[in-house]
């Protein structure tokens, strides 16, 4: 059990900055997922915690002890690598037990613990094999066992599931989660897969280009993305983001032949500037009548089995909606969409940061204005 305190941590590769001052705190026993596209610095951050990468600036403390200058072995972390990094010339048993061998644990005890650990991950029948003779999922288990056997204070996972096929990935995901509950070590899991991130995380850290975009519980991030980046990265298909102009007089925005009323106080603050609004494809609804709502032309349809995604075009902008499996549409259809305003997100067009609508607005009658936005709900 150990907390991890990351204070103003920076990383430069030569002159190129990879991390620009990251501040994070992972509580003891927490399962934290760091999510971001490739090149966002998430693996770098993980490897800095592990001690595989030098820290250019700032401090990392594990369990209250600053580890900047400590070797990986002195930090009490175990790591599961993306390509498993199993020792190809050693048997499964020796792979699992290598850490114990290095630390000089007597052979009898070592074998007992290897057997115990192998049982946890269901590898007891494969101990004599070489990694080359194992399937992808089994190799993954060996990599996990190798981390578990050390009874580490901190588990680090570097995209461990990305080499598995889709079905195996889902079952391993569940196993990792169960394992975490059982061992209750602090776990940091790096991935670019948002489903993995949503399902595994107690807390989610979304990173982009060396900055932390948002930290929070998965649903919190899903419902209140802090920036256009987070909004488009979390959720599949991605959130629709549309740049539009705020009409101050009518306190509304126009989109696809429809008008939506917005908080007048917000409209006043924007003073006719552009704003980016977003809505998730799963929150759009089809209008009962053709005249009402946003006019969208279907470009193509993806069948998912449980439903379908219609990729449409509205005023030249791409706009996706998800439909249930009873609603059949084909390419070329014209749809009328209703965009419930409680599901609308607003972002500053220049900075991409979220504009909080629920926050108290100084020069407005809060309750009334607020209420009107809620009830006027649907674009019409």
């Amino acid at each position, binding site marked *: 059990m150990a907390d991890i305190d990351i204070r103003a941590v920076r990383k430069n590769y030569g002159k190129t900055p990879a991390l620009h001052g990251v501040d994070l705190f992972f509580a003891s026993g927490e399962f934290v997922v760091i999510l971001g596209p490739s090149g966002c610095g998430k693996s770098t951050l993980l490897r800095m915690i592990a001690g595989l990468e030098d820290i250019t600036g700032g401090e990392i403390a594990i369990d209250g002890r600053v580890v900047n200058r400590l070797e990986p*072995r002195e930090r009490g972390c175990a790591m599961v690598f993306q390509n498993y*990094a199993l020792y*190809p*010339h050693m048997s499964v048993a020796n792979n699992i037990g290598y850490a114990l061998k*290095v630390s000089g644990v007597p052979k009898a005890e070592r074998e007992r613990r290897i057997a115990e650990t192998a049982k946890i991950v269901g590898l007891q029948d494969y101990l004599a094999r070489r990694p080359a003779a194992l399937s992808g999922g089994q190799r993954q288990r060996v990599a996990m066992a190798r981390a578990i056997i050390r009874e580490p204070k901190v588990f680090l996972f570097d995209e461990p599931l990305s080499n598995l096929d889709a079905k195996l990935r889902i079952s391993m995901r569940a196993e990792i989660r169960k394992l975490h509950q059982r061992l209750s070590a602090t776990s940091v899991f790096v991935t670019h897969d948002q489903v993995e991130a949503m399902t595994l995380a107690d807390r989610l850290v979304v990173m982009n280009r060396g900055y932390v975009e948002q930290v929070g519980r998965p649903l919190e991030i899903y419902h209140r993305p802090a920036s256009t980046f987070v909004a488009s990265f979390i959720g599949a298909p991605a959130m629709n983001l549309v740049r539009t102009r705020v009409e101050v007089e009518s306190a509304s925005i126009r989109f696809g032949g429809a008008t939506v009323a917005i908080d007048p106080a917000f409209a006043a603050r924007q003073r006719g500037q552009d704003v980016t609004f977003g809505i998730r494809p799963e929150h759009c609804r089809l209008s009962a009548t053709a005249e009402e709502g946003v006019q969208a032309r279907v470009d193509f349809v993806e069948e998912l089995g449980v439903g379908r995604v219609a990729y449409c075009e509205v005023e030249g902008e791409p706009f996706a909606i998800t439909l249930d499996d009873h609603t059949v549409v084909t390419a070329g259809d014209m749809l009328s969409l209703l965009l419930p305003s409680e599901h609308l997100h607003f972002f500053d067009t220049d900075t991409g940061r979220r504009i909080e609508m629920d926050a108290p607005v100084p020069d407005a009658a809060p309750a009334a204005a607020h209420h009107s936005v809620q009830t006027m709900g649907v674009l019409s």
Partner: protein
Amino acid sequence: MEKRAVFKSWWLPVVFALPQLLLILFFFYWPVAAVVNWAFTLEPPFGGPAEFVGLANFQEAFSDPFYWNSVMVSLIFATVGPLFAISIGLVLAIAVDRQLPGSGFFRFLYILPYAIAGPAAGMAFRFILSPERGLAATLNAAWPDIWNPAKYGEHALALVIIIFIWKWSGYTFIFLLAGLQSVPRALGEAAAMDGAGPFRRAIDVQVPLLAPTLFFLLVTMMTEGFVGADTFGIVHAVTEGGPNHGTEVMVYRIVDEAFKGLNYSGASAQSIILIGLIMIFTFIQFRFVEKRVHYK
């Protein structure tokens, strides 16, 4: 497989292959045939066609104590030299592979000796390790005769082996560095996470994965030690087989016997024995050492 080009005439492909065929014929098959012919015949002293003498040339070689001496010298040269050359190349490769500051410069530096011809290196070392000058002179002043390759056969043999090692460490270094760089970086990192320090990582992870490269180097370097142009070149330039046959490796003895002693038949017989010896060694290596090598 699809045939990309089809020659209609029979002579065109032959013409294309001819230069290479002629080279092999004149510089390989013809000499080999001549050697086999000489090994079983003797030239009459006062002219006339060569006489077939059966195994007499071999008997003569085997009954000569200096011949057996040259076999011993070659065995020592071709085992000690390669083992050290490979070990030193391995240490240098592991050091350079850690990519510490300046490793690019050292990589270049370590390969350089391989670019120097053996006899040239031999001449340089003759001066560097000459007993009358420099470091060796100081040592000899303190402990007389502690280093005198001109006087003691063992010292001279050590000298030529040192030159061989100096030159060929750069060669093994290239191969081992290439081998190390194909070992996934994550393996070393996994071992580091498992608590192994740099030395332990090298022994437990890097060296076992280099086994195919090490085996390849063992076979080629031992062959080089037995018959390499450098082996002859170094001995020829530094000691000329002496003192008292102390550095007379088999190749040197063969050349010496053929072109100074003008005994082509004896030299040819010894060449054939040497070829046989190398075949036996290579067989042993493949039979017993290769079993312990895991190709991925």
